[in-house]
């Protein structure tokens, strides 16, 4: 008898838990009913924002939240550093399953694709197009949507990143961006009369020259194998992935060819990468050139410029650094990768929360002062072309040199190539493709197989198979 | 305090789920233990004597029947409310407490009106310790004591509450032979001094006989006989009791009564007037044999063991149910090892007849 009661209780507890979990999964509900875009400035609303900002960046953010609250005192912004980008993704992913996602989050395109499996991300098109006005606390008004000027001020490549999801809809606004730039040892280049390469052929030639001058060096360090592969696809116009239809298109002859070419570079000792060298190649670049194994050039993130400063412990510098755009396949149609976080807004049952989130996102992405200050604090590139309207920022940019102020020098290069940014399609599985082509580069460069063509062919085939398997195709 | 057990029964649910058979550990016990006496519960292991003790203590609840202490029905009372002291076979001293703490422990459990002030508790603890003569050892840990000393501590701990009834579970079994004799006397002394009704459990009949005022013999959950040790020995109620008591044990024969005479084999060994003709089981105490050159009972002599005052004669007889007959005779009786046979006459009051089926005593 007692045993029956106990087992009954067990079963009941199980049932109750599963029921509760089942009901909890309905929490997301349908898309917020945004038929009307009236934001009620009298009703308090709290929004949450997940990001990865460190302490100094949070200080900038807090300062601007205070400014934002001067015009919208009814909106409380709670923000939180969740960890790395992956942590943000994992956290939100689980939160979506219980309907507990934040209002705003730092995101990469593949994150958005993932969240959209649950249809959790708010499309921004209607909001951007909204023409009704909102009255702020200081009596001024603003248009709820984006004005034509505001849209124009965005760097196009960054702005368009928001609609690369295959359905033509806009899901994100850019927050702060970075790209890859070519760092080079300006002192060395000047000394040996080397010219800064602008194409891959030129780069190869420079590598050969450097190798002759200093055989124990590795002329070029390339941080991200994945970026290398994707950028080459983009520059050469060869297929990489597609957001619609068959996703994984990168197994083709053209791609085999450039990978094989780079393998020869590697075997000639021209190049190393982060995975191969076992750490960021900036470490090799900032070494004393007299030491073995240093790099004279390094292709890395503009956001990592701080790590490319070859500073001695006594505060002097080992050499002067120059920064240039990455080499191109076709100088007429330059392509450089666009990276760095965007902001997405999540659907909520309460339309006021969505509108408040939108107003805040709009503030962060269109306010010149915030973009400038955030750029200075982070080393990331602001997303606005008119960021130089901020005088402090403009002055700092103008004074940037090849020693201690590399981040600004890098930003300067980034702003000059504003028309060259590309982003690759985002879909559920796009990050797998990114990882797999990075591994593919690792394998193809370092492999010691005798039959190189067969090895490359197999590596591509395996990578596509893995992508498809992970995507559940 | 007299203790009365009335139709006391204990049934354990079967361990074996499939057969579902219940185990009757104690079956319909009824007896009365007079006030201030030392009682031995005696029986082979598994006879239910410990269960009975545990039921008296309250650690086990009877399946049926009642237990009275004096006139109070304590059947439903929990152990602590019965006013008992219990000493375990392995003493169950708390190994992490000193002797003093061990003895104090029961007093510290008293609650409400019974609660004692600290100094009274201490005084009582020392009193109990003095009674068992361990007041010198109060600050030692149990592991630093000998077996006999541990035994005394356990008794002191049981006595300190001034119990109405003291219960001892196999109190001597963990002691060596020399200590056993000594402790046996000690228990007797303490019981006499305190006058507490004391019940102890043992499987050793000698131990029970030597110190008890009364013994209770049990077998397979059934009460066999109660009485003063000598009475039970001299007048066993059945074959089991007769066999269980006495060293050397009683000699058992298959016999037959014919015409008022008891026959062992062909030999008519004793007059048993008043018994109908029938087959019987015969028990003869070792001291019931008297060597007699003309005695009616003729046995094949195997061995003679000299024991000083007595002589133990080992012989064989066709009707014996044991391989050998052991008899104790005076040393001056004239038996030599070389003889082929030995003849006995029997002392009538040392010969008991039992029904072959029921093993109940047949009196003559």
């Amino acid at each position: 008898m007692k045993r029956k009661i106990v087992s009954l209780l067990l079963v009941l507890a199980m049932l109750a838990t599963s029921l509760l979990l089942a009901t909890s999964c309905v929490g997301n509900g349908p898309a917020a009913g945004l038929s009307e875009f009236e934001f009620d400035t009298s009703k308090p609303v709290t929004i949450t924002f997940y990001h990865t900002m460190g302490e100094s960046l949070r200080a900038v953010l807090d300062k601007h939240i205070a400014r934002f609250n001067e015009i919208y005192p009814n909106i409380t912004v709670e923000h939180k550093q969740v960890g790395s980008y992956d942590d943000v993704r994992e956290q939100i992913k689980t939160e979506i399953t219980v309907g507990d996602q934040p209002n705003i989050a730092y995101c990469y395109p593949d994150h958005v694709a993932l969240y959209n499996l649950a249809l959790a991300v708010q499309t921004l098109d209607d909001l951007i197009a909204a023409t009704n006005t909102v009255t702020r606390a200081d009596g001024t008004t603003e248009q709820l949507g984006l004005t034509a000027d505001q849209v124009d001020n965005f760097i196009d490549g960054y702005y368009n990143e928001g609609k690369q999801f295959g359905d033509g809809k806009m899901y994100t606004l850019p927050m702060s961006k970075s790209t890859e730039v070519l760092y080079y040892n300006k002192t060395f280049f000047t000394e040996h009369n080397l010219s800064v390469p602008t194409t891959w052929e030129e780069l190869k030639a420079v590598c050969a020259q450097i190798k002759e001058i200093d055989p124990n060096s590795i002329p070029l360090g390339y941080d991200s194998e994945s970026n290398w592969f994707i950028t080459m696809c983009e520059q050469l116009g060869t297929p990489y992935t597609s957001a619609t239809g068959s996703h994984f298109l990168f197994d083709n002859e053209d791609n085999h060819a450039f990978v094989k070419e780079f393998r020869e570079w590697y075997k000639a000792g021209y190049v190393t990468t982060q995975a191969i060298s076992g750490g960021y190649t900036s470490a090799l670049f900032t070494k004393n050139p007299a030491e073995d194994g240093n790099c004279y050039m390094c292709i890395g993130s503009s956001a990592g410029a701080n790590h490319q400063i070859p500073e001695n412990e006594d505060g002097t510098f080992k050499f002067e650094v120059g920064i240039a755009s990455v080499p191109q396949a076709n100088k007429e149609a330059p392509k450089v990768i666009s990276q760095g976080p965007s902001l997405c807004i999540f659907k909520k049952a309460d339309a006021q929360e969505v509108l408040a989130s939108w107003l805040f996102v709009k503030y962060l992405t269109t306010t010149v002062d915030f973009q400038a200050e955030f750029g200075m604090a982070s080393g990331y590139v602001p997303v606005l072309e008119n960021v130089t309207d901020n005088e402090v920022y403009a002055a700092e940019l103008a004074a940037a040199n090849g020693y201690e102020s590399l981040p600004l020098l890098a930003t300067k290069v980034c702003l000059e190539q504003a028309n060259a940014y590309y982003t690759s399609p985002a879909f559920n599985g796009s990050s797998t493709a990114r990882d797999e082509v990075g591994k593919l580069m690792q394998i193809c460069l370092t492999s010691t197989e005798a039959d190189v063509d067969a090895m490359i062919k197999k590596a591509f085939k395996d990578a596509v198979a893995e992508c498809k398997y992970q995507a559940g195709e | 305090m007299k203790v009365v057990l009335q139709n006391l029964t204990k049934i354990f649910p079967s361990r074996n789920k499939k057969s579902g058979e219940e185990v009757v550990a104690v079956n319909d016990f009824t007896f009365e233990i007079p006030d201030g006496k030392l009682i031995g519960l005696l029986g082979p292991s598994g006879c239910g004597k410990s269960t009975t003790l545990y039921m008296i203590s309250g650690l086990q609840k009877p399946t049926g029947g009642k237990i009275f202490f004096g006139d109070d029905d304590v059947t439903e009372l929990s152990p602590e409310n019965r006013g008992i002291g219990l000493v375990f076979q392995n003493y169950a001293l708390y190994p992490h407490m000193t002797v003093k703490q061990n003895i104090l422990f029961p007093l510290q459990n008293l609650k409400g009106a019974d609660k004692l002030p600290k100094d009274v508790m201490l005084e009582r603890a020392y009193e109990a310790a003095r009674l068992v003569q361990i007041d010198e050892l109060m600050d030692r840990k149990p592991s630093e004591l000998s077996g006999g000393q541990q035994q005394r501590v356990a008794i002191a701990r049981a006595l300190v509450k001034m119990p109405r009834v003291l219960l001892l579970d196999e109190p001597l079994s963990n002691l060596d032979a020399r200590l056993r004799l000594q402790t046996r006397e000690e228990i007797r002394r303490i019981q006499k001094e305190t006058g507490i009704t004391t019940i102890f459990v043992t499987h050793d009949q000698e131990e029970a006989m030597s110190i008890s005022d009364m013994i209770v013999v049990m077998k397979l959950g059934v009460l066999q006989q109660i009485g003063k040790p000598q009475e039970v020995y001299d007048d066993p109620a059945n074959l089991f009791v007769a066999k269980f008591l006495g060293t050397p044990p009683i000699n058992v024969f298959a016999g037959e009564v014919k015409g008022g005479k008891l026959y062992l084999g062909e030999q008519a060994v004793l007059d048993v007037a008043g018994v109908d003709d029938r087959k019987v089981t015969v028990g003869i105490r070792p001291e019931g044999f008297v060597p007699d050159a003309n005695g009616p009972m003729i046995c094949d002599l195997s061995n003679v063991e000299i024991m000083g005052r007595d002589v133990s004669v080992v012989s064989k007889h066709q009707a014996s149910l044991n391989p050998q007959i052991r008899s104790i005779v005076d040393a001056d009786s004239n038996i030599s090892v070389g003889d082929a046979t030995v003849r006995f006459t029997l002392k009538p009051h040392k010969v008991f007849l039992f029904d072959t089926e029921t093993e109940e005593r047949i009196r003559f």
Partner: protein
Amino acid sequence: MASKAVTTMNARDMQQVSAKQRVVKGAVQFFLYAFLILMALIIVFPFYFMLISSVKELAEYRQTVQTLWPNKIVLYNYVEAFNTANLGRLFMNTLYVGLVSTILSLVITVLTAFAFARLEFKGKNALFAALLGTMMIPGELFTITNYQTISNFFGLKTLGVQLGSQWLQDVGNWKNTFTVLIVPFLVSIFYIYLLRQNFLQIPNELYLAAKVDGTSDIKYLWKVMIPLALPTLISITILKMMGAWNSYVWPNLVANDEAHRLITNGLRNSFADSTGDVNIPVQMAAVAIVSAPLFLVFIFLRKYIMKGVSRSGIKG
């Protein structure tokens, strides 16, 4: 076989043999020590490497042939490792979580072990076997479901959202609380098993004796069983604290905000933040800082840790 040799020996032989034995014994002892010391060096070497690397300048660490003793001892790696993370806060958080979860865990473990060791109830053995069975299941399996559970405990959060009750939402959402770091791991089957075995060794008569004296179960547990099982309880305490110190995956998932972050996560995060060159000396300094408290505890409570571990085998 040996007896034949012994019987044929004369006194002189015996002396020779005993001299020979002494030599053999000495040689054996020598080899024993040589072997043990060699193994001990291998065991200790990574720690040594960690320590010397943590006090080297980066340039010295990067020398082609590494030095076995730093040319110049610098401590700034420690300062940097210490400053990169908000260590004071991390220490306090970890200590708090460790203490509370240890105390609660001990209470639950003691109660459960007591019930399994001393009380009789239907289905005891089946239940105990089932509990032991769960120990074989890879713990990774629980994480994803548990995360859902604590995000929306018994659906309370959803209910709170539906009813508009902030209080209910807070009750239902355990994320970024100390609760979530403590509660899900309060029950350790292994500790229950360990303590139950210990309790079973305590003779049943002690329990009966206490019953006769009118001791309640709770008092018996407190006055007799706990003192007798104290070494085991201390072992459990230390292992549990070590667990809090070393836990990483779960806290990283559920409570990685500044107010609740634990030490391992904190250090890990701080060093993941600093992109760029892997500065091994600073990294080694960080490793040394994380390891130091455990080493100290170990030195002082060696006996209990080793006793506990020898019966456990479950790390952390």
